[in-house]
């Protein structure tokens, strides 16, 4: 079996295992039969069953959604922008969405659906801001697309600062938003998922439809154009889908960083860059990674909960260092100024 199919098969096996782990770890082993029973019949008669059905299942759903959408968006961004460090969190998409949502809620008192619209708008705005800031560096000495990442980090810092200032202006509502702003996978947000889930599903569908054209574009724009692919249209639609998908994930549970950056790097060595195979792999692996992070956040400091966003930021930052060392500091890349 080729490496690729091995990876795909194992990923699709690991996902249900991880899901079960996420749902069941933390309960006493003796209660497992009745828990599975409750899951199958969807009725809760004891407190444990209620926790399973009404707290853990929503949480798993949100984690799978966010992980999958972020990883797929990250892979698409990295392919289209041809930059191994591109991802929704490093290009200002997540922080832009968070800023617009917080500003909209605090200033205009938006309801949940309109908050989502604000988040989507903010995601697009964040991306455009990142590109605009990157322009001042020009491209003369930038073969690796470094300026885009710098610009993204700068824009993220800026937007986060402005969000912080907004929250300060309203001390009472600040308490409500503070944990959301750092990325909080919380079963209480299942009502948000109910409103926004179709956006992520739609963007993933767009990716899967455009997977082959995108792979052709990856091989080279001229080759793709000669094969009949409308390069600019496909690129723009896919980018927009990636940005809006990430925006919807932010609207549900706040900006969860680094999943979109790291999962493509896990997937690519095994599956290659062909999006037809890589996208499903990213979806499953992203879901697995997010479930794992959420499990760690939930169980590490019992009975207190840690925010999943903080866990992904902390661990993701360290993995980011490893990626940078591998890609940019390996001996072969040192010659380029």
């Amino acid at each position, binding site marked *: 079996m080729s490496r690729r199919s091995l990876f795909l098969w194992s990923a699709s096996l690991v996902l249900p295992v991880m899901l079960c782990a996420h749902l069941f770890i933390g309960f006493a082993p003796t209660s497992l039969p009745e828990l599975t029973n409750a899951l199958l019949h969807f009725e809760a008669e004891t407190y444990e069953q*209620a926790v399973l059905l009404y707290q853990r299942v929503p949480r798993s759903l949100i984690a799978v959604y966010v992980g999958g959408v972020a990883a797929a968006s990250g892979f698409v961004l990295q392919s289209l922008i041809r930059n191994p460090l591109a991802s929704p969190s490093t290009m200002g998409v997540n922080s832009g969405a968070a800023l617009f949502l917080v500003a909209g809620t605090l200033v205009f008192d938006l309801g949940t659906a309109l908050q989502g619209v604000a988040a989507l708008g903010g995601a697009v705005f964040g991306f455009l801001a990142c590109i605009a800031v990157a322009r001042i560096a020009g491209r003369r000495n930038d073969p690796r697309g470094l300026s885009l990442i710098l610009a993204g980090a700068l824009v993220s810092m800026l937007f986060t600062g402005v969000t912080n200032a907004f929250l300060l202006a309203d001390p009472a509502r600040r308490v409500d938003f503070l944990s959301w702003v750092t990325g909080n996978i919380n079963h209480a947000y299942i009502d948000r998922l109910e409103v926004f889930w179709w956006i992520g599903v739609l963007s993933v569908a767009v990716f899967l439809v455009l997977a082959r054209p995108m792979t052709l574009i990856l091989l080279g724009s001229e080759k793709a154009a000669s094969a009949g692919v409308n390069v600019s249209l496909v690129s723009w639609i896919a980018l927009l889908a990636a940005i809006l998908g990430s925006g919807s994930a932010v609207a549900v549970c706040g900006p969860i960083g680094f999943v979109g950056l790291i999962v493509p790097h896990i997937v690519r060595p095994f599956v290659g860059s062909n999006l037809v195979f890589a996208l499903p792999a990213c979806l499953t692996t992203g879901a697995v990674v997010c479930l794992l992070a959420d499990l760690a956040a939930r169980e590490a400091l019992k009975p207190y909960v840690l925010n999943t966003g903080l866990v992904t930021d902390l661990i993701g930052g360290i993995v980011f260092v490893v990626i940078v060392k591998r890609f940019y500091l390996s001996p072969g890349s040192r010659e380029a100024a």
Partner: protein
Amino acid sequence: MRILVLCVSLALAAMSPAFAADRSLTDDTGREVTVPEHPQRIVVMHEPLLGVPLMDLGVELAGSYGRSDDGTFVIAVDFIDTVLGEGHPKPKGIGPVGQPDLEKIRALEPDLIVASELDAGKAEQLSTVAPVYLQNVGSGKVHGFDVEEDLAALVGREGAFARRKADYLDRVEDLRAALPEDPSGKTYLAIFLTDQLNVVGSSSGMVQALEDLGYSRLEVAGTNGISSGGGSMMLMPLSAEEFGRLDPDLLILLNSYMAQGRDEADTRAALDKLVPGWDRFMKPALEGRVLIVDPARVITPTVASAEHMLDSLGDWSRKER
């Protein structure tokens, strides 16, 4: 004739407040401050924690941080109206949130500024206007309505505080007699609902009332020994799963200030969102040991808040019977 003039001038001098002595004190962070004996114009840097206790003692405030120019408070809940009742004169604002305006403070001509230990960085600048006294308000450092007691000593109203406390203690005894069961030895757990479950700290009138009645806080220790609240430093939210398994003798729920409402139905709905099915499975809910309180009334470290808590407890126990 000269003796008469002397006596009259002495009498006048004795009555004149301008000659009141200044005292030299050490505030809660160790700074030496020279404070007037009976401050007339006080500016506070935190209205719920410092301003309301002072007003509860009968002191009128000149200015307070968090009031805007048109007299409204920065958050939707006005603590003065809620805790002390309507009709009290409101202090003036000293600048928007996050930016106290020194010129505005000076225009109010304060003779004392009361701030919390968290404003230590601002103390030097504030002391260019008036002496600054830093009072501890953090949860680990003060308990119940200690803040009001300390401030009473600061402004020379110990007598007023003693009277308030005596009345309050009488009411505690009355309530204790009226309760069906003796509360001593029972446990309580107070939770503040936002989008997570936050255990309420120990510096509020509510906690004072409960502990004077005899309740003690439920220890929420985890398997790795993290004690309730994570010590005095951190304040982590409680896991919703663990919460459903807890069984305090009295469960108290407070809904966030910005929620749609702080009455019973809204609070129950808010908790249902966080811990679905709690009213079906939690022992306190099944046995009717849940008390829902308006946080704005009971959260300030004042005798008035403690009395509101007693009222709520009394109403609730009567309804339960």
